[in-house]
């Protein structure tokens, strides 16, 4: 194994510090008994206790998790279907356009997505609230799921599906009995990615949310504008933990699905 030189080590430390120092400060402070960031008054779970009594914050958390769950589920179903159409549809007319349109939201500035969704909801006169956030997050995360699932499908050995058909299994059942069990790690990691993205989102939610439906990031943002309460640090720490767990699970699943792919497909 290659040994890291001194310069390399320093560069690595600086890079990691640049990335994670702010988060570390936040996490450490969430356990700080003092109200002031600059004073360390000993470790305590005081702010977590206070958080547990903050009804508004808990309500926002519940909205966020429900939105994330529903939108991730919808995005996973639609994204998987889109990935199937892209890999299995053959050379249908407008395939290039379709794949472009699936991937465009990946690079679209969120402000534009949020604004255009807002205009749409206003135009069709839907009351903004819980469901508009779900719809908006579904459109945001669908393309991520499609990318993840498609990358698994291109290495999928089609002769497995042909073997199932050949043995008398109709196409839909073949998908459920053979394809899905083999690609599910990718589907699940797509779901988790979508869940984490939805939980994170502030920009789009700020456009499409309405009264009575405030997500956690929105709530945190509005509280912070009135001054940083240490309680916020506690919320953020929990949020970071949830998102990190989701991403770790997603990457583990992706890895597993890759190592399970048939030998020929991996080479």
């Amino acid at each position: 194994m290659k040994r890291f030189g001194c310069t390399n080590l320093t560069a690595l430390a600086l890079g990691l510090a640049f990335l994670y120092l702010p988060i570390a400060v936040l996490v450490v402070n969430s356990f700080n008994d003092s109200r002031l960031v600059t004073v360390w008054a000993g470790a305590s779970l005081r702010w977590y206790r206070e958080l547990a009594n903050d009804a508004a914050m808990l309500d926002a958390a519940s909205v966020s998790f429900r939105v994330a769950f529903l939108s991730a589920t919808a995005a996973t179903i639609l994204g998987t279907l889109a990935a199937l159409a892209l890999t299995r549809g053959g050379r249908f007319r407008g395939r290039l356009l379709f794949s472009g349109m699936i991937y465009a939201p990946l690079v679209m500035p969120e402000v534009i997505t949020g604004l255009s969704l807002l205009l749409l909801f206003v135009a069709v006169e839907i009351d903004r609230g819980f469901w508009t956030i779900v719809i908006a997050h579904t459109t945001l995360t669908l393309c991520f799921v499609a990318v993840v699932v498609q990358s698994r499908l291109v290495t999928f050995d089609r002769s497995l599906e042909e073997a199932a058909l050949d043995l008398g299994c109709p196409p839909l059942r073949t998908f459920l009995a053979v394809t899905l069990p083999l690609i599910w790690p990718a589907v699940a990691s797509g779901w988790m990615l979508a869940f984490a993205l939805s939980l994170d989102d502030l920009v789009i939610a700020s456009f499409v949310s309405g009264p009575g439906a405030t997500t956690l990031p929105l709530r945190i943002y509005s509280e912070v504008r009135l001054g940083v309460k240490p309680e916020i640090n506690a919320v953020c720490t929990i949020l970071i933990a949830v998102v990190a767990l989701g991403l770790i699970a997603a990457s583990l699943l992706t890895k597993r699905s890759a190592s399970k792919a048939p030998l020929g497909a991996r080479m």
Partner: protein
Amino acid sequence: MAVLVSFDQVTKRFGDFTAVDGLSLDIHEREFFALLGPSGCGKTTLLRMLAGFEAPDGGRVTLAGQDLAGIPPYRRPVNMMFQSYALFPHMTVAGNVAFGLKQDGLARDEIAARVDEMLGLVQLRPLAARKPDQLSGGQRQRVALARSLAKRPKVLLLDEPLAALDRKLREETRFELKELQRRLATTFVIVTHDQDEAMSIADRIGVMNRGCLAQVGTPAEIYERPASRWVAGFVGDVNLIEGRVTAVYPSFVMVDRVGMRLRVAHAPVAPGPIAVALRPEKIRVSHAVPDGAFENGAAGTVADIGYLGTLSLYKVRLDDGLVLKAAVMNEQRAERPIHVNERVWLSWTPDAAVLLME
């Protein structure tokens, strides 16, 4: 024998490339039929049209008199063993074999009994609970075979079933396959580009070239009476001697070539240019001048000797420059050993050679 599968003027195109070109072929009931041909000649495509994975662009494919057009793969009484085996990695060996039976909605105990029977047939009972990635290549091949036989198809299609096995296992498995086919009395259609495999396993062989059938016949017919120069060259080793038919008699013709006269037993043909195919093992090599050396005999110099265990292959350069190959069984070699650069005589009987017009 009754015709079971029939291809009638079947054509398949991929873009502007014609993979199968107006091909007609009948396969009989309970027959072991081999499709033999070089890589890319359309063997797999033909098989996939029978299985239902490709639709012909022209012509008809019928099974027991029924036109298969429009019938999807999952409704055809035909099963296929894939070259990659295509075992379901998330199911056990038993689960793989049971898969097709479950689609038929058979009762649980009936499925279990049939799976057990199939695993017994391929001697895999002890491995029923393993997953495919815990098996050797040969064992996987058996699972694939058991799975494709479990539904008792009318026709079993095998796409290069032995290609992934090593040589020794391949030769053993050939005979097992043949034995299995006889026992089950099912029609097997096997695709291969290995001529030894086709010869040793099949009742009849269809030799394919560029999407067409070059010849259909028993292994002996194809070897002894090739229909064209191409078939003669593709199946086994052959010497091709170009010449002209100069005289036609009821039971033989005379072929002339500079410095050589050949008397070939064959049905009459018109005089003109022709090729004579001569298998190396039908040529005798001797020091002495053979009887009637002016016909079906030639003198030359040994250019090379290859020792192949049971036989030796002599390459003899005739005086007019033509090189003929002669294979001689090693225990039948001449009393006195033959060396490179020695003068020898080659001779053969009139019925050893075959006239080829194409």
